[in-house]
């Protein structure tokens, strides 16, 4: 068959290119532009070179926020992934329970970030909050406004509450795609419950788990709204994650140059870590 060459086809791609340019490329370039200049307002800019980057990388404030953020991501992954798998394994595979469970699972995902924050902000208050009041009534000293440990616990529980569903839904999708014959064969081979999980269910969930870990890592590494609404980054700086720090720099102090430099470094870190995750997990997958 003869191939038809027609360069007019490029026009069909044009809308996407324009869209991506305006939504991603141009904003990113303005950030690059800010990151190498200094301004005192009135649209007067001075060339600053790599000054802001050097300042950022030597600032303890940035590294502390980064470590906090990595610890946070690690903790929520360590909770949400096993918990998500566990819930998905125990969800019904057929019958009326399926839609009920799916809707219940999807609910937290449908709530806007700042509403989630507000819910937990009120829920955890020890004067009027249902959780805070009763935890204190039980004799446990809990106050997320003053105690940084309590603030961390609150933020982590909130994230687990909000996002475990995503892991559950992805794992569930992986699980229901396993044909019955696999379970029947496992029964005939005398496989234990653990062996069924290890050799049938886990390998089949492999791919979706990869996506779940990537999504959850990226999201948690960029988390802003919920902790901002609940703790505002406090007490002190104890829950100030990278994005909260970034917003404080950019909008609070209006330091556009440093903030732009920070955005870029931040962006590169997310990109790098996601790439590392992806490569490690897909390589592992290929080796087996």
């Amino acid at each position, binding site marked *: 068959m003869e191939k038809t060459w027609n360069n007019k086809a490029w026009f069909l791609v044009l809308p996407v290119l324009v869209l991506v340019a305006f939504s991603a490329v141009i904003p990113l370039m303005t950030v690059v532009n800010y990151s190498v200049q200094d301004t005192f307002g009135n649209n007067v800019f001075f060339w600053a070179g790599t000054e802001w980057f050097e300042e950022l990388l030597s600032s303890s404030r940035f590294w502390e926020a980064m470590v906090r953020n990595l610890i946070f991501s690690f903790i929520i992954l360590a909770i949400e992934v096993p918990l998500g798998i566990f819930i998905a394994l125990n969800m019904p595979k057929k019958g009326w329970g399926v839609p009920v469970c799916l809707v219940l699972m999807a609910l937290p995902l449908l709530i806007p970030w700042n509403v989630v924050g507000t819910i937990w902000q009120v829920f955890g208050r020890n004067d009027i909050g249902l959780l805070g009041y009763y935890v204190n009534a039980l004799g446990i000293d809990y106050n997320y406004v003053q105690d940084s440990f309590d603030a961390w616990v609150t933020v982590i529980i909130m994230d687990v509450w909000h996002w475990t569903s995503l892991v559950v839904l992805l794992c569930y999708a992986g699980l229901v795609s396993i*044909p019955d*014959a*696999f379970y*029947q*064969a496992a*029964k*005939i*081979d*005398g*496989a*234990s419950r653990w*062996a069924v999980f290890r*050799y*049938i269910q886990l*390998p089949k969930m492999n791919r979706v788990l990869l996506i779940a870990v990537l999504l959850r890592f990226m999201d948690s590494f960029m988390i802003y709204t919920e902790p901002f609404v609940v703790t505002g980054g406090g007490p002190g700086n104890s829950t100030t994650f990278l994005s909260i720090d970034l917003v404080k720099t950019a909008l609070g102090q209006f330091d556009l140059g440093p903030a732009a430099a920070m955005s870029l470094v931040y962006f590169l870190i997310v990109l790098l870590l996601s790439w590392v995750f992806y490569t490690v997990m897909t390589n592992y997958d290929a080796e*087996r």
Partner: protein
Amino acid sequence: MARIDVNHIRHSYLPNPRTDADFALKEVHHIFEDGGAYALLGPSGCGKTSLLNIISGLLHPSHGRLLFDGKDVTNLSTQERNIAQVFQFPVIYDTMTVYDNLAFPLRNRGVPEADVDRKVRETLEMIDLASWAKKKARGLTADQKQKISLGRGLVRSDVNAILFDEPLTVIDPHMKWVLRSQLKQLHRRFGYTMVYVTHDQTEALTFADQVVVMYDGGIVQIGTPAELFERPRHTFVGYFIGSPGMNVMPVAIEGKTAMLGAQRIELPGAPKAASGAIELGIRPEYVRLGRDGMAVQVSKIEDLGRHKVVRAKLEGRDIAAVIGEDETVPADPRVRFDPAGINIYADSWRVEMGA
């Protein structure tokens, strides 16, 4: 190996079955002899897979009992019944090596590792995958995967029976042949009790000593391939087995003569006490096409290479005849029925003919 006694088993997927139509499996009562090779043959939805799953314990029958060597196993789990089953689509544990796949059922049963190794190596030889032992199972072709599924059954030498649920569906035609003859060999060498579900008559007839033909939830005939061909007990068996299927035409009976419209057909004997709707069945292989007999109008000749199938009209009804590759259809074609191939059916069930 065991003798499997299917004792008045009925099964319905509905919670409260009332009429016969609610049952996927209507009263199956049969004994699978120890060491026999059986095929369950029938169209989709006839209940053959249900019967197989009841034997393996994946399904609990609504009524009836199942006995292995006289011991009631109806309420035992699949593990306790010690059955091997090969499914339609190859089931392999694709994160494991070929070796570990075969070792899996043994390790699950706590067999000492030395015995596992010996059994697995033997089985790898049997299924011809010895050189693949260290490979990951996921990279194999469909027929190799299916061999592994089979191997996981063979590796347990003490299984009561090996059940096959249309195991060659996803295999290439050429490999089907090879695998089937390997199965046949294994059966001869080791004398496993094998039950093989299929809707492919060639598969059933070449694999089994005894073919169990199922139709609409029940067994219609059990017999050797020759019996199914020569003396189908039910018109369904006549249609289903053979290509093209048996010619079946309504007739009236008068002593040793069948009346088909204006034609009179001599029978080998007088049918005994035939009442209800009477039909005459004759396989195309027994329809002789020539210059004498009943006049037919030929509508089509299909040349299949080995032989020709002649499609014609006899008394306004479709009839098929098989003629040799070198034979030709005469200008004024007529057919005779070879009395050896004539069967008489009353309400679809075969009636015996007296002398």
